[in-house]
């Protein structure tokens, strides 16, 4: 019986570990906007796609967009707002948080965080 197969798996593990370490360094070096956006989405219970006009309404209400959105190219207005602070004039369209395509195509987003004291 040979353990050559285990040695082959070991080589794969080491190669993947090297790639993963490189990825972790890139998150820091390349400013990591995608990493921070993913964290922001992980902290969110719901995402609502809203129009540019709705975004203007939120700004007029004194709400400032999150910094992560400014780092995207093109920049996107992302508001982190608790559910009770979303103005009734804004309905928005629920977007599944797994749907990257729709999240990135939306003109602007409201992210509703999980409630925490």
């Amino acid at each position, binding site marked *: 019986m040979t*353990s050559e197969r*285990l040695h082959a798996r070991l080589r794969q593990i080491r190669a*993947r*570990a090297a790639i993963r370490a490189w990825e972790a360094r890139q998150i*820091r070096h390349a400013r990591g906007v995608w990493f921070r*956006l993913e964290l*922001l989405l992980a902290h969110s219970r719901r995402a609502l796609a809203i129009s540019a006009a709705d975004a203007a309404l939120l700004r007029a209400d004194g709400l400032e967009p999150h910094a992560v959105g400014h780092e995207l190219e093109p920049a996107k207005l992302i508001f982190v707002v608790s559910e009770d602070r979303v103005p009734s004039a804004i309905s928005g369209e629920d977007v599944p948080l797994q749907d990257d395509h729709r999240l990135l195509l939306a003109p602007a987003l409201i992210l509703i965080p999980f409630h925490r004291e």
Partner: protein
Amino acid sequence: MVGGSQVPNLLQPNAASTLVVSQDVDLVVPVRSHEEVREVLSRMSGYAPSPAEPSVWLPADPECLEINFIGRDPDLRESADSYVLDDARLPLLVFGLLGFLREGMTVETEGVRARLPRPAGLLAEKLLTERTGLKGERDLLVALGLLMHSSDADLNEFAELYDGLPQESQTLILSSLAVLSRLRPQSGMPDPERGRELVDVLLARLHSTP
């Protein structure tokens, strides 16, 4: 000690084993106990080593699970430190990340006692393991299964462990949790949609701010 995807199953009340569907069980062998385990295996009936994968033992009874023997060296912490323990009877792949495992509770079900790892160490191992394809997603969903059965003390232990890690490892853990939070459901695995709030709470404990 049992490791891997069967642990959340065994942590369920009465080891209900309804969380994760898996055809095998990982048995973690401390390298210092390798010889003892080899001795026990020489007396065990009903299982034989797989000709294709020598650290996997196949059951004679198809109703039983395959056993995947994996090695643990308590001095290791990195995937890159993994090595092969060559042996004619029971060769082992010793995984560096299994160094995070610490012995935890023993469960007894249908007359069989099984030692489980403490959830914090296994959670760290699962979140730091390299993710590739469907297997990688399953690993993250196993981490979710652990979260579902972790106590407040387990989460505190995990947060302490996290605080002691190098920044690169901390980043990888946060990244894995962010990915886990947005996984799509898979049949026979814990539902990530229902677990999202648990992930949020853990991220908050780790003081992650985007």
